[in-house]
């Protein structure tokens, strides 16, 4: 740790001119010079490519098809020659065919939604769990977390990486962890108050909901609730939401970024400058590409974010296309870290939706409808945000087969569809039955989603 003070939104207002003080978990790495970093990355990239080529037949075939040998990849500059990986690869080689180590070396599985009915899973070696924990320890430290803090984890603890990621990071720091998992707002607030929780990890929308409930209960942030900061991620949010959250809870609200395929939360994180998220570049290499051509774009330009892991051993990812749109900068940050920063995610290159932190693809819903007898594959998804919580309505057209003269029968069909969607997508949706032909048809790619959220 180089410095030991902590700013929060309230203090900032009072002491405007004071410089922010930043905590850094691993200064030797996080503040290494760009030249040192380049050498570090190049060496580990070459090793990773060699391991991937020797152990993952699918990727070897892809490299062979391009006439590439592992020895062709010697430095970060050579990265652009490597073939891409995609989410569909995790589906096509599900569950273990992307492992670069024997299955016995895997100590953890985490998962996320796939593009169709099946989830995708990622295998972690002991090393990979350590790498991920280190990244989350840096993330939490950057938000002001020390071993004296009490960290409430209100991300779901399960296959979803949010909960375990936050737990591991806080545990690594030696902070006191309160593993609440998601939901049960009243109990969350009770623990927050009784234990004097100082740091909160959850989705930004849930944090807002918690904040508003705290206010409604007549509890006073700063007195009854002693939060100083929060690490919020797993869904897109805006600068306006940040300000609202900071005022609501009297905290520093930090944005974090991550994905199961690469590690989990903590791949990139806000420092207290809150001006872009530092990418943990000693563990991953970030690129921005033109999503149409696949060509690399320079710093500052907006395009698709691509990650290459260079320290993971279980399931390394080479040039993994995230489909998230953002830009990168390597301009020096006031906090002292040298790691490049990524901007907020401004959009997607595919049709993935993030609903209450869960990745949802329209194609998953389509898979369910097509697979349910008597149901037409015509549907429309309406996304909204009500009381800071995302809602997903699925409009399904009524068919002869589904129709009956009794409400009970139709409701049973509706419930069946709702349950099927829940089992595949993992979230509750509101299924609405609509008149036949009322969902617009279009030539080619139909417009299936109306997103009314103001993001």
């Amino acid at each position: 740790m180089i410095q030991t003070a902590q700013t929060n939104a309230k203090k900032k207002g009072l002491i405007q001119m004071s410089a922010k003080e930043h905590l850094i978990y691993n200064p030797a790495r996080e503040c290494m010079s760009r030249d040192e970093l380049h050498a570090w990355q190049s060496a580990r990239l070459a090793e990773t490519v060699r391991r991937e080529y020797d152990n993952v037949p699918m990727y070897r075939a892809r490299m062979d098809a391009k006439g590439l040998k592992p020895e062709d990849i010697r430095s970060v500059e050579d990265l652009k020659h490597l073939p891409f990986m995609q989410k569909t690869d995790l589906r096509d080689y599900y569950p273990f065919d992307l492992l670069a180590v024997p299955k016995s070396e895997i100590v953890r599985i985490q998962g996320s939604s796939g593009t169709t009915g099946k989830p995708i899973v990622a295998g972690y070696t002991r090393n990979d769990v350590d790498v991920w924990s280190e990244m989350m320890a840096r993330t939490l430290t950057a938000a002001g977390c020390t071993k004296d803090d009490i960290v409430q984890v209100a991300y779901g603890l399960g296959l979803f990486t949010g909960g375990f990621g936050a737990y591991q990071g806080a545990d690594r720091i030696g902070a006191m962890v309160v593993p609440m998992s998601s939901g049960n707002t009243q109990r969350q607030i009770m623990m927050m108050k009784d234990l004097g929780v100082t740091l909160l990890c959850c989705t930004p929308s849930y944090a807002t909901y918690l904040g508003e409930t705290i206010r409604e209960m007549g509890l006073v942030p700063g007195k009854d609730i002693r939060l100083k900061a929060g690490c919020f991620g797993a869904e897109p949010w805006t600068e306006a939401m940040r300000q609202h959250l900071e005022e609501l809870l009297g905290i520093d609200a930090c944005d974090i970024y991550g994905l199961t395929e690469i590690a989990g939360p903590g791949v990139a994180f806000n420092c207290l400058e809150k001006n872009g998220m530092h990418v943990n570049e000693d563990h991953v290499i970030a690129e921005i590409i033109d999503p149409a051509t696949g060509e690399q774009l320079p710093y500052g330009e907006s395009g698709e974010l691509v990650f290459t892991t260079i320290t993971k051993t279980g399931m390394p990812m080479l040039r993994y296309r995230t489909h998230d749109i953002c830009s990168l900068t390597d301009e020096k940050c006031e906090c002292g870290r040298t790691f490049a920063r990524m901007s907020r995610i401004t959009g997607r290159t595919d049709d993935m939706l993030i609903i209450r932190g869960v990745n949802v693809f329209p194609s998953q819903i389509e898979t369910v409808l097509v697979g349910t007898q008597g149901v037409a594959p015509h549907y429309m998804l309406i996304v909204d945000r009500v009381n800071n919580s995302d809602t997903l309505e699925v409009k399904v057209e009524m068919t002869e087969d589904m129709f009956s003269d009794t409400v009970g029968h139709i409701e049973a069909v509706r419930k069946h569809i709702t349950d099927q969607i829940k089992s595949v997508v993992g979230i509750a949706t509101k299924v609405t039955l609509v008149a036949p032909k009322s969902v617009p048809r279009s030539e080619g790619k139909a417009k299936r989603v109306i997103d009314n959220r103001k993001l």
Partner: protein
Amino acid sequence: MFIRQISVFLENHPGTLREMTELLGKGGVDLLALSIADTQSFGIVRMIIHSNQIDLAMQLLKDNGYIARINHVICAAVPDRPLGLAGLLAVIEDAGLSVEYMYSSLRKGKNGSAYMILRLNDGQKAAQVFALKDVAMLSQEDVDNL
């Protein structure tokens, strides 16, 4: 002793019921009985019409994109006075049957009776019980003469 009923799926928002009844009305279809079951998001309109108009009505509905189907229900005559309906329901209850839905005819019954359209959980058993307990039921022909 069953009569035919048409059920139609409607979305639950203003104008849908008018549009459908207008469609049938312009086609000359005469409604003898009608009920609406509504939930928050959708409705089911059930109706009884003369049997010689059923094909016409179904054609009109289908041509205009409605989901409709025909099924069989019971039309019972009950005394049109206080406790008249209660008597019928007591018969149903004593037989261990239950009512899934029920509505009344738009036409006034003959001989001081009211006509109730019923769907019970077991139609066959209901018809037997009604016959045994002297509950008057209308045939399709009776309905066609209304």
